[in-house]
């Protein structure tokens, strides 16, 4: 094995492999376990039933994000069920000595926003969390898996997962993004090209000049939606951008240890000539601001394109295109430009970080939210909120008709009071446009970049952000 060049996935896998299991899977050590209120209570209960302790409480971190309201976060929460979930998480963290980033800590936020900003997410590590968007942490060169509640129990009890090895597909970007085109557009374009099932069985390695030029936050947006493309995880090799981002973060190594860490991180990156099970190319110069029109994230288009007609749709997709057109109440052949919206949502673990809010504010400055449109800006964490407020972004949003909210998952999945009503159409910077995802069983979602959402908010319909910037 010694001299054969290897990719990051294989190196991380080897370094974390505890042993082969009788089931044929690998027992994989999980370096960091992130926990939130929705998928953990049943796992802690199973632990109690079996009288098992948490194996590595100091490698486990918790926060509250899914159910927390974004208007008032004063306890007790007015929703009794939400309050019960929060109390349960507090109790579990107390009983097991797990650090909880709660609202009072000043560091609460969406689990995939706070891990990185606290410096908990490190290159070359393995991360698991009972949430499918755990793939976000791959932006640092970590191998990060979303897991189910039984697996949360496994990780709590053993700090390990039983897993089958994945194949690795390198997604090689070429060219350069045009102005007004963002990481969100790149990730949507990848899903469109490879399909929502394309990644099944794979880890995605994102590479090439477009990815190299991205900030760490943009890379998180790309990795975040790996799961929407069917991949189990996605990652970017660590580089100077990664080390600069991590330097000085509270949980990152400090001083000399940081320099030793950089050496190790560097050694974990994919080497030239490493083997991949598959390689695909995507031309970044050809990506336009992108909008979803259907009911899965692969049903997306460049903003200047038209919704496909059934006869230009491949046979095996026809049924789902027809279903999507029907649900979304759109016509085949209709341009995506000009679709009216009722709600604009800027936030989520895909696009709720400071750079996202800066871009959205830049667009918001060009107008006022259309009367009748509800526009929410929800920072991904308390840190993001503080930074935005220090830069005056909250004022910009308010002055231009947007609501400035407290941090949480908010309308990304609507397990909290932020929900669509009836058939409302929402321009959303989140990651899923599934039927009913945003809280109304018949609500409709158009996914796009935060800048595009802000543009839609001030025009009351889908517009091309390039014409505003």
């Amino acid at each position, binding site marked *: 094995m010694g001299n054969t060049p290897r990719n990051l996935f294989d190196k991380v896998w080897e370094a974390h492999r505890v*042993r082969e*299991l009788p*089931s044929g899977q690998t027992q994989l*050590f999980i370096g960091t376990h992130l926990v939130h209120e929705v998928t953990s209570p049943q796992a802690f209960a199973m632990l109690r*039933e079996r009288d098992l302790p948490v194996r590595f409480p100091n490698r486990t971190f918790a926060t509250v994000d899914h159910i927390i309201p974004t208007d008032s976060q004063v306890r007790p929460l007015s929703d009794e069920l939400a309050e019960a979930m929060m109390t349960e998480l507090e109790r579990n963290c107390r009983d097991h000595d797990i650090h909880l980033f709660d609202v009072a800590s000043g560091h609460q936020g969406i689990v995939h926003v706070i891990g990185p900003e606290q410096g908990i997410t490190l290159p070359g590590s393995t991360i698991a969390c009972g949430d499918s968007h755990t793939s976000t942490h791959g932006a640092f060169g970590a191998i990060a898996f*979303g897991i189910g509640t039984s697996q949360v129990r496994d990780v709590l009890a053993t700090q*390990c997962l039983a897993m089958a090895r994945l194949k690795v597909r390198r997604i090689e970007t070429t060219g350069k993004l045009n102005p007004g085109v963002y990481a969100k557009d790149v990730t949507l374009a990848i899903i469109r090209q490879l399909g929502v099932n394309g990644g099944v069985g794979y880890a995605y390695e994102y590479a090439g000049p477009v990815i190299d030029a991205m900030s760490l936050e943009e890379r998180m947006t790309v990795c975040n939606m790996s799961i929407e493309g069917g991949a189990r995880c996605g990652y970017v090799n660590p580089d100077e951008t990664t080390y600069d981002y991590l330097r000085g973060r509270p949980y990152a190594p400090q001083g000399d240890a940081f320099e030793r860490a950089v050496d190790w991180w560097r050694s974990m990156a994919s080497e030239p000539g490493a083997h991949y099970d598959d390689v695909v190319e995507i031309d970044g110069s050809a990506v336009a601001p992108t909008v979803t029109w259907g009911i899965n994230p692969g049903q997306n288009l460049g903003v200047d394109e038209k919704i496909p007609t059934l006869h230009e749709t491949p046979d095996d997709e026809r049924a*789902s295109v027809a279903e999507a057109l029907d649900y979304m109440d759109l016509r085949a052949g209709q341009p995506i430009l000009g679709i009216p919206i009722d709600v604009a949502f800027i936030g989520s673990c895909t696009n709720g970080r400071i750079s996202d809010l800066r871009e959205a504010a830049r667009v918001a400055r060009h107008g006022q939210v259309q009367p009748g449109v509800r526009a929410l800006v929800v920072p991904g964490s308390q840190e993001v909120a503080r930074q935005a407020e220090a830069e005056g972004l909250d004022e910009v949003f308010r002055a231009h008709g947007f609501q400035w909210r407290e941090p949480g998952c908010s309308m990304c999945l609507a397990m909290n009071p932020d929900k669509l009503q009836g058939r409302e159409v929402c321009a959303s910077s989140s990651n899923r446009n599934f039927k009913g995802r945003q809280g109304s069983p018949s609500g409709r979602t158009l996914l796009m970049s935060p800048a595009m959402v802000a543009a839609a908010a001030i025009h009351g319909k889908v517009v091309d952000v390039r014409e505003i910037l």
Partner: protein
Amino acid sequence: MTATRASVESVSGRACVLRGDDIDTDRIIPARFMKVVTFDSVGEHLFEDDRLAAKGNHALDDDRYEGASILVVDKNFGCGSSREHAPQSLMRFGFNGFIGESFAEIFAGNCTALGLVCATLGEDDLENLMGSVDLDPEQEVRIDVEARTVTSRVGTVACQIPDGTRRQLLEGSWDATGMLLDGAEDVTKTAEALPYVSGF
């Protein structure tokens, strides 16, 4: 240690056909029903929004399928979020086997962790099975994990269940906690060798 170690060799019973590709976990169990600290009640809300929207015409509300323990689905069933609430709600509603053209990966993994079987069939075999169950919902359908076959009125056809999953089901090692605990010493060794765990 009270881990369940029951071997799952086959699943059999009546089947229910639920057509449609890309049925995601938000549809299986809408997020608002995840505001619970136990799984006890999730079965009651299985497909709730879809069923309401279908006004009684949903497969789960079809009397002919009542009591079915196998759900026959199309492509990419269970895509979307990693919520175990999805297989939990299906299991609590009474399903313990799934036959489809393909399953989302995390969903299939979550099923295995509960001892539920996901078997995939080729397009034609699946279509034949769906047609047959549609015509005769009383028939018994059987997924044989050992032999990797699906048996129905149509006959016995080969299905796919990944090697590792099959072994876990047969050996009763699908509840991974016990198996992982057995490796405790090796875990300590692996952890100590990782620079980021020891603080660089």
